[in-house]
């Protein structure tokens, strides 16, 4: 595999109690300069190594990344909280300014909150993030409460 693809890992400063939870503190440089993050969600792909029982593998991860109206970085998981399809920013012409799931017309507002009345019952997960030397680092996607 191409060496350049594998992002270097940094250990994030976290509570020692949490430190024993393997890997949860690892944030990964996703090769995106903070200056290149705009207020329009952009797709970011990166790889992480995962040991999962029998398999050790590189898995691909994706996030939708943008700056909100306060200039805060938001990195949303693209996995639909209904049944797991891939959600796209403005994925449907009928719903501008929203995330759209093609499987059962699931919709989410820009901040990832599920649009009531569509199949998803909770918002898109949010990736932990950090900024180091102007680069974006992403960790694990974290669930949020339903709307």
């Amino acid at each position, binding site marked *: 595999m191409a060496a350049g693809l594998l992002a270097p890992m940094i250990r994030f400063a976290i509570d020692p109690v949490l430190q024993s939870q393997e890997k949860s503190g690892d944030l990964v440089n996703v090769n995106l300069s903070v200056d290149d993050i705009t207020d329009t969600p952009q797709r970011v792909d990166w790889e992480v190594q995962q040991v999962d029982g029998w398999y050790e593998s590189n898995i691909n991860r994706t996030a939708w990344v943008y700056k909100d109206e306060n200039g805060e970085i938001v990195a949303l998981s693209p996995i639909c909280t*209904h*049944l*797991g399809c*891939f959600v796209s920013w403005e994925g449907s012409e009928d719903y501008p300014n929203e995330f759209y799931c*093609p499987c059962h017309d699931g919709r989410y507002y820009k901040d990832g909150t599920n649009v009531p009345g569509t199949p998803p019952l909770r918002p898109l997960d949010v990736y932990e993030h950090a900024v180091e030397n102007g680069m974006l680092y992403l960790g694990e996607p974290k669930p949020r409460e339903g709307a």
Partner: protein
Amino acid sequence: MKWLRKDLEKYVQAKEYVDTVIIPVQMFQVVDENQLEKDSFDSEVLAIFANEIEKELSGRVMLAPAYTYVKGADLGREAERLNEWIKHLKQQPFKHIFVLTLDMQWKKSEASLDANLLWLPGLKPTNLQSQEAVQVIRGQIEQISELIRSYW
């Protein structure tokens, strides 16, 4: 969804949302040595496509285990067996059944299949991890999932 315990647990509870099946149809051989590399490469590519499409549409699509046959088999007969699979699948509320293959020979048997044939042109043997290959594959996956969605 895949044919894995954890996914099937989800499936039985959400059956009405999962109306599409993809069957990867894969050729296998070890005799024609000149073609060994190409044929095995094709089978890797097929597996990648099947997995990635499943990932993209996993809430509505069930990925079946691959249907495998020996190179040079009578595809008319294989089509009959494949139709048995399809008949079996249709006992569940699956409305859309897609057969995914890189073997062009299936084009000739398309009419006798009770499913939609998705034939993919193979890739030139290359490093599948390379940036370039990833880009090409990603582009094709987008097109295939769009095609599948057009049936919904």
